[in-house]
């Protein structure tokens, strides 16, 4: 059954086109949508280890607000959403997140139009895609045809 769509994002970057597509897809497939924000430790303030509680708490607030804004449009259309934040090694955190949940049918990359650096330069997500439970999709604006 096609029920669950996951939008994966990194380091607080959101590709609005991907979010728009996730909403349209969920609407026509009658699916629920989960947002997962993965934040690498390195992208936090360098001093975060020293003041981890404060840094994580600030991040939590910021991402929480961001996710709430993203979810608003979905909820208005009657699409159930959930959101999660994971801090650490993004690839490992993604796999842990997936292992804890029933399977998703579609994964959408929600941070950029393409995976940064491309598959050749080895973005972690491109490498992770080989081990995912379903295909990962990137979304970009259509070039006029």
């Amino acid at each position, binding site marked *: 059954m096609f029920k669950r769509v996951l939008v994966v994002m990194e380091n607080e970057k959101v590709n609005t086109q991907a979010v*728009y*597509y996730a909403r*349209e897809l969920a609407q026509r497939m009658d699916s629920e949508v989960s947002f997962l924000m993965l934040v690498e430790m390195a992208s936090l303030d360098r001093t975060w280890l020293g003041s981890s509680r404060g840094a994580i708490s600030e991040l939590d607030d910021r991402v929480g607000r961001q996710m709430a804004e993203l979810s608003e449009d979905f909820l208005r259309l009657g699409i159930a959403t959930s959101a999660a934040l994971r801090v650490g090694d993004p690839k490992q955190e993604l796999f842990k997140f997936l292992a804890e949940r029933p*399977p998703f049918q*579609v994964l959408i990359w929600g941070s950029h139009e393409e995976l940064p650096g491309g598959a050749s330069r080895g973005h972690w997500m491109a490498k992770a895609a080989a081990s995912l439970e379903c295909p*990962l999709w*990137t979304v970009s604006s259509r070039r006029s045809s």
Partner: protein
Amino acid sequence: MAPDSPTPHNPAPTGRIMVVDDEGTALKNLRRILEKEGHQVSTYSNPVRALELLKREAFDVLLSDLRMPHMDGLELLDQAKLIDPGLEVVIITGYASLNGAVEATKKGAYHFLAKPFTPDQVRAVVAEALALKLSRDQAHALEQEQSQEQGPLIIGQSPQMRRVAEVVAQIAPTGCNVLIMGESGTGKELAARAIHAQSQCAGGPFVAFNCAALNAELMENELFGHEKGAYTGAGEAKAGLLEAAQGGTIFLDEIGEMPQAMQVKLLRALQEREVLRVGGTEPIGLQLRVVAATARDLKAEVGLGAFRQDLYYRLNVVSLQLPRLAERGDDIQLLAYFFLGMFNQRMHKEIRGLGGRALDLLNSYAYPGNVRELANIMERAVALCGQDMITERDLPPDLAAVELASFSRPGGEEPTLEELERRYIEHILEITGGVRTRAAAILGIDRVSLWRKMKKFSLE
């Protein structure tokens, strides 16, 4: 009459074309242009005579002038459509009057050719009309076939889907367990139903169960049933789904999600060919076929220890890989027309087809949700469409707005010949109750060869 399908050597479809025009020169020109394209062309300057022929012979496309002395093009269109509602009509007009065009549209003419026209314009409009007729004829043929056949139909003319249909036809009568692999929405349950419908147990039940829907405890109760008083609230004995599928097929969807504890119990039931209800002491014999399906790479799951290897081999006697819709080329158009017919009927509409731009968008979209997504898109389009053709406006806006690219895991690995041989021997030994003489006879080898193979594959 159906136009000839395009082939790699003949990219544009050809068909039987009737041309009606009171001007002899125009008729001659049109005949020359169309015959060069490989069409069979009949020309008439008198529309009444053209209609007489239309009653006797089938044509794919009618090209008619709008203004003629004996009968105008719109009247001809009316009568021609009464004779053959599937006929595609191209109205040729030197008077590009809006009224004429609107009226012709209402009467079901979709194609127009304005005078003066170039040979390229003629070729293009006829090719478009033929392509539309071809898609409609194929979708109609599929509907007919589906209503006549007992089982569900695997729709598709692509090489991948032809291969799927062939494999289904080959494996259905054997009775062996089948593992169907494919992404969500590729039609795994439909394939399972087709296997059941073409099998020797087609008269028996087909029971579908989703292994991701319940936890281990509820799943055991559902699959194995329970005896009266097995637990609080079990006031009556209840047969499980395995028993319900007795003499037929059980379809275990999303088998990769089955909890480990249940995998052991299912394996035991399949090995022993009997089931023990929860709280029961008397085993009940099972005679059924198992068709399992998964969107996961089950072999990789076995490697990771998430799925039992023995159960994997028990279920995967034969595997069937269903392709993604985006890999199926022309099937998108064929399925779009199939769904158009289906939803037209359901919603009491008479939408004739899909406009060129709408078709382009459907053909270029990636379909993460596969056939199910296309069906949903077509259902929405038919519901929204207020004209006689589906246009871009009736399709979801994201189809025109975004472009998708996929990073997918490598497809499920095909089993090696040796693996297949091992599984098949195991299956034959199972159905012969381990009687080697009978197994060897079915396999077409002598007993010594069978013994050697059993030793090689550790099947003793």
